[in-house]
């Protein structure tokens, strides 16, 4: 496969861009693998890459029911940050944030990681107090996050209206400068290309219909639309469809699947320099490199697998954005879409072993797992390769819902994905 560089770009430009190699082959399934990963999102593809690169395990297939990156990886609003409240979350998300910094170079693929900063607006005394507490907690964990006065916030994000007459006055903001955005598709493509280069099979358009366990309960492989495929180990990384798959292995999950929607405006010239969230007014906004305003908020209220969601939520989201940024109230929206996100009762992920030997699960990332992609993929590969969790994902067990040792980020995360 071609190494991407200024030189290869120039060479192919001269050839009219007709001679680029395929980035990865569309593999047919073999009859047996050491590891099968179900779900070719960023997490699954990344795990395949780290299995091959860091653990020398290359007899691996990533099996995807649609096209790779077509799930939540290709549907999210790409906010990356690590300023979570609890020690466990801060550890895992900050590990991911470290990996993001150098990922383009590592994958030889421009994932367009941009440290543009993520700002959370404080609109009332409660916001101010809880954000300040949050910032101190982050600092104790070595996670960057800083308090801005409203004037400083305006300086960082000029479209902000800090007038005291605003419907929801801005009293200050928390800013994580190292946070930002990345090109979501490129993350899936970059990992897919590097994994395939190391011998991983990426099998698309092949739904896994069930996970097969032997009489002793040990995993034997997966049933698919193209027949049974044997595997020593199976890792499920299927976001909104995880509980359906785990049910087939006889394991009931503490998960509910909700539609999460987002929308983009028509493209305009650069106006919006960072990501801004308002948990209180309940929406967030950034501007993509193409010029579209990227807008989102919380999930729909009901569980669903429809990848669609309802219009009342879109109305609510756009109304919230217009309250905070009246300058955008005449922008036209181009399109909206939905993804199905898997939500746990404590709003933290489940990443580790399961009661079935040889079966691993990575799920529960809900509305906010894009930012975790490199970190989750990295520790999932570790867990599968060594049959024991990495210290960063050790607290994120399925067991915690029995022991009560929850990682209760619910209040900390709110609308902020």
């Amino acid at each position, binding site marked *: 496969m071609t190494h991407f560089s200024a030189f290869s770009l120039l060479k192919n430009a001269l050839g009219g861009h007709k001679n680029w190699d395929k980035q990865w082959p569309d593999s047919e399934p073999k009859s047996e693998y050491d590891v099968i990963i179900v779900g070719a999102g960023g997490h699954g593809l990344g795990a395949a890459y780290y299995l091959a690169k860091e653990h020398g395990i290359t007899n691996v297939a990533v099996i995807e029911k649609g096209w790779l990156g077509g799930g939540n990886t290709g549907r999210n609003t790409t906010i990356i940050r690590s300023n979570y409240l609890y020690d466990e979350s801060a550890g895992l998300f900050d590990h991911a944030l470290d990996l993001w910094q150098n990922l383009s170079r590592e994958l030889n693929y421009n994932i367009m990681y941009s440290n543009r900063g993520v700002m959370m607006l404080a609109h009332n005394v409660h916001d101010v107090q809880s954000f300040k507490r949050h910032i101190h907690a982050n600092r104790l964990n070595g996670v960057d996050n800083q308090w801005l006065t409203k004037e400083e916030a305006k300086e960082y994000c000029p479209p902000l209206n800090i007038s005291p007459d605003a419907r929801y006055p801005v009293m200050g903001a928390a800013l994580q400068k190292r946070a930002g955005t990345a090109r979501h598709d490129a993350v899936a493509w970059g990992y897919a290309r590097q994994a395939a280069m190391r011998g991983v099979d990426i099998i698309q358009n092949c739904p896994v219909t069930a996970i097969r366990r032997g009489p002793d309960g040990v995993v034997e492989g997966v049933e698919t639309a193209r027949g049974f495929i044997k595997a020593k180990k199976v890792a499920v990384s299927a976001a909104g469809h995880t509980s359906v798959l785990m049910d087939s292995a006889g394991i009931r999950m503490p998960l509910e699947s909700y539609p999460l929607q987002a929308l983009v405006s028509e493209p305009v010239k650069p106006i919006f320099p960072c990501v801004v969230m308002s948990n209180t007014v309940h929406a967030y906004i950034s501007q993509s490199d193409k010029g579209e305003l990227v807008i989102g908020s919380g999930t729909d209220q009901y569980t669903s697998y429809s990848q669609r969601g309802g*219009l*009342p939520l879109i109305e609510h989201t756009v109304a919230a954005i217009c309250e905070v940024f009246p300058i955008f109230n005449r922008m036209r929206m181009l399109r909206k879409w939905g993804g199905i996100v898997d939500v746990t009762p404590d709003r933290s992920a489940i990443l580790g072993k399961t009661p079935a030997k040889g079966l691993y699960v990575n799920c529960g990332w809900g509305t906010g797992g894009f930012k975790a992609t490199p970190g989750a993929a990295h520790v999932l590969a570790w867990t599968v390769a060594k049959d024991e969790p990495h210290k960063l994902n050790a607290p994120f067990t399925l067991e915690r819902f029995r022991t009560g040792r929850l990682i209760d980020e619910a209040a900390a995360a709110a609308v902020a994905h």
Partner: protein
Amino acid sequence: MLLIHCPYCDETLPEPEFAYAGEAHIDRPADPQQLSDEEWRDFLFIRTNAKGPHYERWRHINGCARFFNAVRDTVSDKFLTTYKAGEARPDLAKLLEGQK
């Protein structure tokens, strides 16, 4: 937008009148002292998360404010039926037959 039939008001109304209230027919433990950790986990946290017909609770929050139950297909988001709280689970086979 979902149109939802409130079995108390006997009217079909738009989604913003209603609040979703999670899976239906999950009974509170009769004798909580006797529950094992596994049973607590199942009661508190494990959900069916059905892909297809799903028994669920809704509340007519901006109307009569009462809780009622529904069967909704989570793939199409289409309601198969709604019924009053306390009524037995409707028979799925019959409901699906009625849809044909």
